[in-house]
């Protein structure tokens, strides 16, 4: 019995020491390329994501993340004709996305300073669709479900050091859509670069 207890303790210690850290806080700069272009089509570098990860063991982690990005596009001046009216204007389409997700992470390496990983994020996305034309604007808000598979890597500068870096690519799909503006579900590719502050 004593041998069994000692063996279990040694095993726990080994696992604890092998995992990347206890936890980590990250802030990422996010670049998004929409793959559905109903409303916006330009690649945007105006995005940021902030998150917290709990490293459960050497292969699995879980976390939460909040994100924001803004996408835009320009529609040149043209005339829109409807029964009884017509309007001529150019339009700046803006799409503001706010996400709050939970995620699970799988680490391909059990040790080392460089750890590739795969993650799956799922949560809610709040979208504000805004049309700016001259001094005027109009908006519609929608909330939907978002899912984001992601491949990336963590790099810890030195063992037990607090500073690290993170890079990832992902594909995001959200159920948000606007009937008023005839905009379908949102999807896009994203690339992230950021810093990670490790705890232990």
């Amino acid at each position, binding site marked *: 019995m004593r041998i069994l207890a000692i063996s279990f303790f040694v095993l726990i210690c080994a696992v604890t020491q092998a995992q990347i850290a206890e936890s980590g806080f990250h*802030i*990422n*700069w996010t670049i998004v390329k929409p793959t559905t272009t109903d409303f916006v089509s330009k690649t945007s*570098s*105006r*995005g*940021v994501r902030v998150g917290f990860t709990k490293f459960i063991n050497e292969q699995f982690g879980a976390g939460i993340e909040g994100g*924001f*990005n*803004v996408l*835009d596009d320009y529609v040149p*001046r043209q*005339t829109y*004709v409807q*029964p*009884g*009216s*017509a*309007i*001529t*204007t*150019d339009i*700046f389409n*803006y799409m*503001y996305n706010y996400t709050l997700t939970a995620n699970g992470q799988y680490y391909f390496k059990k040790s080392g300073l460089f750890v590739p990983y795969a993650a799956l994020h799922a949560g809610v996305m709040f979208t504000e669709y805004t049309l*700016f*034309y*001259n*001094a*005027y604007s109009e908006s519609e808000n929608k909330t939907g479900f978002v899912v984001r598979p992601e491949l990336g890597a963590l790099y810890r500068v030195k063992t037990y050091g607090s*500073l690290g870096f993170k890079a990832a690519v992902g594909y995001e799909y959200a159920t948000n859509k606007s009937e008023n503006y005839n905009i379908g579900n949102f999807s896009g590719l994203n690339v992230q670069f*950021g*810093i990670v502050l490790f705890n232990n």
Partner: protein
Amino acid sequence: MKSKILYIVPLALLLGACELQPQSGELARDMVVQTQYDQPSVAADIFSTYNTFIIREDTIGYVKRGVNPDEAYVTDANFTGIAGGYVKPIIALTKGNLSERGFIQVAEEDDPDFAVNIVILEDFSFFQTVNYLPSYGGYYGYYGYYFPVVSTYYSQYASMVIEIVDIKNATGTDYKVIWKAFIGDLYTTFDLKGKTLEAIDQAFVQSPYISKD
């Protein structure tokens, strides 16, 4: 070094996340031109029944909260900073477009078929909040302006409204607005005169049904 990175990187990220709206210079490049027409009248080809119109020669209406109705107009004396004036070129261009469509300007005593009103609305919201009644009692005539029915809130926009009012088929004091053009914003433009004139032409371009033929 590490502390510098910790300060610089988040700052760069925040800067990257800025520019959340289009720049004002880009927005003000061209004015918005919206036209509306009375569908039954246009379906009945009412413009082909018109021959003559009336329009004020040297003033346009000016509607703003707190402005005395007796002073609710502007002339070129109000736009001394604009070479060649602002009011008369607007009126001339409107008349020119109507003449090209086959209509003849006449005096009030010549019993015109329709009247053309041009009004600047200031501090009124644009499309949703300026709700003209489909027909309103008492067309005040060539020498009077009227106030639109404003339903909601204050805004900082200034818009020009051009109206065609049916006089020929008026019943009693009930005059119907056949066509309206909303042009704006007059505040934010960098070329008030040039862009207004361009917008007036566009209002007629997107209204091909305004024609004698």
